[in-house]
């Protein structure tokens, strides 16, 4: 499966044997899908650019996301795509105060910082973040040290050989899923070695990152191979290009495609879903959890009276 010498479930240095995922003060069992709501403190992200650039709009989004069933708020200060430079100071300025304000208003909500830089990670943790969502596959190796120091969680993503804020250029893999497994497990091992708590490590195949659409489709189709490692898996599918290219639709028309990919990923056992549209995503993952038998139906009467 992988040459990374991966720890297996139940191993003292592998995933939690009961599958528990701990984020902040909360503990989540397997079978309970979690919605991570995206709140971008950017003027130029690809989906609804600038919609939560102002602090009041961002706060409104946080309130709405939590009301619609979000478990995690993911705050980002830098778009994934290439664009105008955002230095460390500016990134911290965008996210740290905002994270502190969310923490103050919602003491128990899980807060995630979407960053790859250890300085920003540190500022986020000091402000109250519980999880460092590194979409760039451990590019800054010191980020894991920060997570360990603060007892925070860490997302270990697959990006192939791509550097932050670049687009894939003619990427090719002999077997993309094998590469995803190898890289994410290598990053998980590195996180463990850095002292990140094993029940706070999450794997992310990172759709579209270091991948063309064919790669992202393959990863979606074979996501069960990643969930079989026993590590909690996060998927970030929301309105991405692999959905748009599959359906030939621009970002504002990718919700249905996103939800289809969400359903397949949930069926394969993904546990965290990073989304723009919380209400719809919540319904989809709850429905799939109910089909899987992980969650009871809300209320059953049909044919039973």
């Amino acid at each position, binding site marked *: 499966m992988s040459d990374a010498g991966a720890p297996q479930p139940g191993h003292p240095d592998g995933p939690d044997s009961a599958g528990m995922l701990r984020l902040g003060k909360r503990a989540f069992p397997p079978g309970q899908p979690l919605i991570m709501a995206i709140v971008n403190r950017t003027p130029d992200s690809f989906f609804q650019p600038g919609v939560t650039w102002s602090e009041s709009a961002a706060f409104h989004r946080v309130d709405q996301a939590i009301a619609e069933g979000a478990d995690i708020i993911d705050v980002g200060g830098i778009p994934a795509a290439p664009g105008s430079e955002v230095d460390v100071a500016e990134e911290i300025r965008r996210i740290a105060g905002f994270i502190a304000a969310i923490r103050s208003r919602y003491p128990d909500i899980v807060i995630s910082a979407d960053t790859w830089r250890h300085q920003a990670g540190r500022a986020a943790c000091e402000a109250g973040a519980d999880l460092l969502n590194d979409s760039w596959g451990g590019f800054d190796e010191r980020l894991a040290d920060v997570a360990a120091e603060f007892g925070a969680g860490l997302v270990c993503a697959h990006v192939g050989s791509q550097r932050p804020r670049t687009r894939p250029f003619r990427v090719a893999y002999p077997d993309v899923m094998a590469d995803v497994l190898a890289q994410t497990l290598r990053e998980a091992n590195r996180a463990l070695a850095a002292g990140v708590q094993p029940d706070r490590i999450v794997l992310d195949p990172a759709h579209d990152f270091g991948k063309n659409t064919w790669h992202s489709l393959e990863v979606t189709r074979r996501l069960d191979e990643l969930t079989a490692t026993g590590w909690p898996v996060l998927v970030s599918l929301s309105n991405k290009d692999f959905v748009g290219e599959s359906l030939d639709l621009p970002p504002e028309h990718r919700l249905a495609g996103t939800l289809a990919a969400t359903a397949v990923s949930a069926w394969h056992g993904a546990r965290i879903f990073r989304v723009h549209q919380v209400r719809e995503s919540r319904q989809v993952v709850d429905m799939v959890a109910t089909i899987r*038998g992980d969650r*009871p*139906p*809300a*209320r*059953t*009467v049909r*044919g*039973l*009276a």
Partner: protein
Amino acid sequence: MLTAAALCPAPPLLARELTGADPVVPELRQACREAADVLVQADPDVVVVVGAGERTRAFDAAAAHLDLAPYAPALGARPAGPETLPLPLGLGGRLLDEAGYHGRRELQAVGADEPAPACAALGASLARTAPRVALLVMADGSARRSRRAPGHLDERSAAFDAAVGRAIRDGDMPALLALDAGLAGDLMATGRPAWQVLAGAVNGGRATSVIRYDDDPFGVAYLVASLTVG
């Protein structure tokens, strides 16, 4: 002779695990629990659970089981081997378990097509099995009480169920024996044979009753009552 009886409906949703996260009918379950408790407190020598089955026959209470998996496969099937009880008998047995009853228990199915005289004769014979016999009668009224009911609306349902309710309330057993089996079938009132077994078991005695629940939240008539016979 018959000294006490309890009347409860037997819809699948009486089983808490079949209604999902929402208890849906907590008042109905509570009323059934109270009826079972009162029945057990009457200190019977035997409790006979009576309910509709494919045909009239007794089941071995020690060997046959309630199995809800046919209604909800996610609950997991029972291991093969033990006989599965008709749902009314299984639910009735569960009510006795929950009431903490450990005494002698018999489970009697009565066929859906059993005519009234045969039902009455069965009831009379059950009442003779011990000095103090208690009956737990699992029986439902019409399933055609509204447009949203399982059987849609049949206007005759209201009068039918009202007659049953009146007969139970007034201890009027001849009225139960007079119920029209054909009409009951039309109205999807599956409790008809079991009510008539009750009437046969009372067998001339004087029955007084307490109605604990009388409603049709899903278009099926549910009646919960406690009867004392003297």
